[in-house]
């Protein structure tokens, strides 16, 4: 047949209309163009104008179309009619559902609001859900940060007034060396991929420090396959080598950090506290005059070296203590190499490369700026070394100190808020002092006395009752974990079940799969949710749950409030909460219903407004008793946190021309929609770096309503609030820790970063590290049952390094029993060579319970898929001291998921086993299963 080609239409119509909203397939919150045909969603792509993704979109985002048509979507409110866990429900009307909830919650509020525990999981509206809980009056509210990455958040805020997460970014345009610690595919995912692409295109180097060489680490130029949990030690060794060689930025340290701040060095109740003036300002020695002065006075050159003695009390600069500690040979590469699993030579090479890039490749931007001491600078000095880290180093019991060590390394190099380094995104930087403290003032029939979560400055801020017992159900902000800034969602169910510190009446949860992959000890949690007391009543009397999908948690609730999908709802991605800013601008965004639900479901936030109206909660009710807001959209536009400041910063004021501050604009949502679903206010170049100390930035932030007056501050290499807890443990002050916690507080609350091995008591014989991560195509997604995504990652073998495969005579497809002191699972294995020699891992949350998510019961997720959660307990093995210690960071309470140690043994021939163990019995699906074939074309 000779060559012939048909004439084809290369310019077909793409869609009838494009509606621009915000993705919710993960925590990244990209802008999306939703192409509509015949009123249906035809295609989703990234929004080129959007500050987060600039047009690109990940697999989750593009698969959103399969989320909107998912067979697992709940259809109507339901009340439980069988035993908990049976999945027996009856569909009810919204009127009945709201009545049931209000009838339950009303009396709780009148009598004792703390009997409601309200915890939200993958919530992107925490400033609203927190506002609701505060007006309800319970202190028992938090989202999922406590079991996710609070170590990273709290360490960042306490150290430098901002954290990694999506709250900052490497200066991708200028950085020449990027170091990535641990699994970090969880937050800011498209910006990080785009940044990696950018620096790779320039030929800049990437160093990946991670036991597993997958994802971002697969493209790292240097892979450091570190032993899990030893990142802090490795970082302190880098600090040792760099300090010893003088490769630190002394000018930066003296100007912008508390390295020169004088610390009381004399034993007693003041030891370790800062020397302060009458205005409570930390004092330094001015190197120009040799005199004592407040750190922020005009013209002061703080001295890193000078010691000050007055009335027989010696005060030494923080930097002295740092030199003393980190120059010690205990941090020499040779001393820590074996522990970290990294040759000493390699540690030195990495330190050398950091030093070379930070100092030999330093550069200047021709940009004037003025600092908070009034000094004018003609240039901005770039130190092109940047770092990032997230969940990986965070989810260990030494995670807080490790995250602190990492920030201290960045600061010693002078690479934070400078060109080429790490940059904050508004509303950060923001010092601890500008954050609220936690509150627990509960009174019947009243709102709580302040925000639930915050940052403690010392023992006085702990949330303890008069008898010293924890005020919160999750025991956040107690001596067990004083700086638990995100709460401890993972402890709520076990504490409520144990009635310790007290019993609750209603557990109210949103988007939190606590009876499955979001809990340690999954089987145990299921038992707690279904356990009955001697009267035959459930130990946790009432459970209300909201979810858009038929997740494993649905069967364990008494009342289901079905949520919409993300394309069917209003939302705001707010500066009051977790906005979508970039380093060069403040930005926020909305979601709006680009399609209407075809089921009897309502957006959860609207349901909360309706519940608030029924309960007549203050904050939601006008003086005449009428409702302030009809639904969430109404709240987004009309709520004011302070006069002129509301959930959305853009298009404020009558004419919609004000940014940040301004009166309510009734057309605000339309303005957002016209603008592509988001709003950006850019920062002038003069204000773009050195933000914590830059007058131009500080003034801009005040104008935007980020704070009410300029808040310049010093980076806290030494965290004084931690020292205050140590002082209490040493016996000083009125508020004293319980005896059994004294030694631990002294040891762990060190105000300068330390590394300690996590508690191995009871782990004898369990020596292999076991980790999880989620694939990039599913991270932070509520859509792992998605028809397209599950074809990418529908199976999760246990990945085992070559050495352990050989040692245990394992081959791909074999089954292994994996056990910990807490339990055992039997799972399929697969060899992976690019993996730390003593570490196994799997993809988390691929495994599904039979009957959930509208999957067939023989779906691989339900037969071969498995959870490591069965091996992890919320408590450590008993130590023989009569106490049970939490499996969490002793500073923040972050769940120590990645401290898991296991034993691995080959079992059976592959034919003997068809399913991973334990195989839990199926739960009855409230939605049935999906179609047998998909041909999803909505256009002609």
């Amino acid at each position: 047949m000779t060559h012939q080609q048909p004439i084809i239409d290369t310019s077909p119509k793409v869609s009838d209309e494009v509606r621009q909203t915000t993705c919710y397939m993960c925590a990244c919150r990209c802008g999306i163009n939703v192409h509509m045909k015949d009123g249906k969603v035809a295609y989703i792509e990234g929004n080129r104008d959007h500050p987060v993704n600039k047009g690109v979109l990940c697999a989750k985002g593009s698969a959103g179309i399969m989320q909107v048509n998912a067979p697992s979507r709940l259809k109507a409110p339901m009340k439980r009619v069988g035993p908990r866990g049976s999945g027996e429900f009856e569909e009810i009307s919204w009127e009945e559902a709201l009545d049931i909830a209000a009838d339950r919650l009303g009396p709780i509020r009148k009598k004792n609001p703390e009997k409601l525990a309200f915890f939200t999981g993958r919530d992107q509206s925490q400033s609203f859900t927190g506002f609701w809980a505060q007006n309800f009056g319970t202190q028992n509210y938090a989202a999922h940060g406590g079991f996710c990455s609070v170590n990273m958040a709290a360490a960042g805020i306490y150290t430098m007034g901002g954290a990694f997460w999506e709250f900052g970014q490497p200066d991708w345009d200028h950085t020449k060396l990027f170091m990535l610690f641990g699994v970090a595919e969880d937050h800011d995912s498209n910006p990080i991929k785009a940044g990696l692409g950018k620096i790779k295109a320039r030929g800049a180097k990437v160093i990946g420090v991670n036991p597993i060489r997958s994802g971002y680490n697969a493209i790292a130029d240097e892979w450091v396959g570190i032993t899990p949990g030893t990142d802090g030690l490795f970082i302190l060794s880098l600090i040792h080598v760099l300090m010893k060689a003088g490769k630190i930025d002394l000018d930066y340290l003296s100007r912008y950090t508390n390295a020169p701040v004088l610390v009381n060095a004399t034993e007693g109740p003041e030891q370790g506290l800062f020397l302060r003036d009458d205005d409570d300002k930390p004092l330094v020695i001015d190197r120009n005059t040799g005199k004592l002065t407040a750190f922020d006075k005009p013209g002061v050159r703080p001295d890193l070296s000078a010691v000050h003695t007055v009335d027989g009390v010696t005060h030494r600069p923080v930097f002295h203590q740092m030199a003393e500690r980190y120059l010690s040979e205990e941090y020499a590469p040779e001393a820590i190499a074996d522990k970290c699993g990294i040759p000493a030579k390699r540690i030195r090479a990495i330190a050398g490369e950091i030093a070379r890039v930070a100092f030999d490749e330093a550069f200047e931007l021709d940009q004037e700026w003025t600092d908070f001491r009034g000094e004018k600078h003609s240039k901005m000095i770039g130190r092109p070394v940047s770092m990032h880290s997230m969940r990986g180093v965070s989810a260990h019991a030494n995670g807080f100190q490790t995250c602190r060590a990492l920030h201290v390394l960045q600061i010693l190099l002078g690479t934070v808020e400078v060109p080429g380094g790490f940059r904050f995104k508004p509303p950060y930087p923001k010092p601890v002092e500008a954050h609220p403290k936690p509150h627990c003032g509960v009174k019947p029939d009243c709102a709580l006395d302040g925000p639930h979560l915050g940052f403690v400055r010392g023992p006085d801020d702990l949330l303890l009752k008069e008898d010293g017992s924890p005020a919160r159900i999750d025991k956040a902000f107690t001596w067990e974990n004083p700086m638990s800034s995100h709460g401890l969602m993972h402890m709520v169910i076990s504490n409520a079940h144990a009635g310790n510190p007290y019993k609750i009446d209603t557990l109210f949860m949103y988007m939190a799969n606590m009876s499955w992959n979001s809990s340690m000890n999954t089987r145990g949690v299921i038992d707690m949710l279904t356990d009955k007391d001697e009267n035959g009543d459930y130990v946790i009397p009432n459970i209300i749950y909201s979810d858009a999908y038929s997740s494993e948690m649905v069967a364990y609730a008494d009342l289901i409030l079905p949520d919409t999908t993300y394309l069917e709802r209003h939302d705001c991605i707010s500066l009051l909460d977790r906005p979508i800013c970039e380093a060069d601008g403040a930005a926020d965004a909305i979601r709006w219903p680009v399609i209407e639900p075809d089921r009897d479901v309502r957006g959860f936030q609207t349901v909360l407004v309706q519940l608030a109206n029924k309960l007549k909660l203050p904050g939601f009710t006008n003086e005449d008793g009428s409702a302030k807001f009809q639904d969430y959209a109404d709240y987004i536009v009309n709520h004011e946190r302070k006069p002129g400041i509301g959930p959305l910063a853009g298009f404020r004021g009558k004419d919609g021309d004000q940014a940040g501050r301004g009166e309510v604009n009734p057309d605000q949502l339309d303005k957002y929609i016209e603008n592509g679903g988001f709003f950006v206010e850019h920062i002038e170049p003069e204000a773009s770096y050195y933000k914590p100390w830059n007058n131009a930035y500080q003034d801009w932030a005040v104008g935007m309503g980020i704070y009410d007056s300029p808040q310049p501050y010093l980076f806290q290499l030494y965290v004084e609030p931690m020292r205050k807890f140590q002082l209490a443990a040493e016996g000083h002050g009125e508020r004293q820790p319980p005896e059994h916690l004294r030694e631990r507080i002294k040891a762990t609350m060190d105000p300068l970063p330390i590394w300690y091995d996590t508690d191995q008591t009871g782990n004898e014989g369990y020596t292999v590290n076991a980790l999880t991560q989620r694939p990039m195509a599913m991270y932070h997604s509520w859509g792992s049952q998605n028809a397209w995504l599950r074809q990418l990652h529908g199976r999760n073998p246990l990945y085992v390094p070559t050495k352990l495969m050989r040692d245990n005579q394992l081959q791909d497809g074999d089954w292994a029993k994996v056990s910990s002191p807490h339990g055992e699972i039997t799972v399929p294995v697969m060899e992976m060579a690019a993996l730390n020699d003593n570490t196994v891992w799997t993809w988390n949350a691929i495994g599904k319970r039979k009957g959930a998510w509208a999957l067939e019961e023989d779906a691989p997720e339900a037969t071969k898929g498995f959870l490591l959660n069965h091996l992890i307990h919320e408590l450590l093995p008993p130590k023989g001291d009569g106490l049970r210690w939490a499996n969490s960071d002793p500073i923040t309470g972050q769940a120590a998921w990645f401290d898991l140690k296991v034993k691995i043994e080959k079992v059976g021939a592959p034919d003997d086993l068809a399913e991973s163990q334990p195989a839990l019995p199926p739960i009855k699906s409230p939605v049935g299963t999906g179609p047998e074939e998909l041909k999803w074309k909505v256009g002609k």
Partner: protein
Amino acid sequence: MTELPNSTERKMGLVIDLDTCVGCHACVISCKGWNTENYGAPLSDQDPYGADPSGTFLNRVHSFEVQPKPCGSEPAPAAQLIHFPKSCLHCEDAPCVTVCPTGASYKRVEDGIVLVNEDNCIGCGLCAWSCPYGARELDLAAGVMKKCTLCVDRIYNDNLPEEDRIPSCVRTCPAGARHFGDLGDPNSDVSKLVAERDGMDLMPEMGTKPVNKYLPPRPKDQMEDQIDILAPLLAPVAEEPGGFMGWLDKALDKLPGQTSGGSN
């Protein structure tokens, strides 16, 4: 059987950077979304919620490990994981076209894109069998052969803004690891990139002359060998204990804006 054109006016294709691809599958799903809704029959999925979900994809990412061999007595360098996106390479000598019994498969003269005219496709599968790259998939619902169209319904589409007239996979790639252009023009950006980064053909021994090119991963794990170069950077400022503070004082004096040293 079907003839190829003698030559094509342009050689449009993809350049895929294996040094940058993180294996996120964004391209895979964006392609699925666009091509389900657009050119020809939708890309169907069989058993999408069941035991063996299996759908049609025009682009897939395969991941494989590379274990470098040991050199001398040194232990083998660390293994590497490569993410390898794969779709039709729009070969100049495309065996999938010449094997087609009906003329349904063809290579376009104007841009070299290999397409399937679904009206003429009988679903015999010969083309998939002949493709050494496994780049064609028979859609089980429609019974026709599906393959990458290089988004022929995007790249010339007057209904799209000009900047969007690129394949869906290229537009969406978060890491910017995919590039699109005319590989027949030595002055095009893609051709320059291929020259600069030693871009490679996939399996050139098959004689298919693929148009798409792959940029190989850069050498990895080299830093340890540079320790001698880097060592002087790490020379201690002082050998004796206490010497560090002496260095510190001198160093502080050298900072800009210091008028004198002092302590009290």
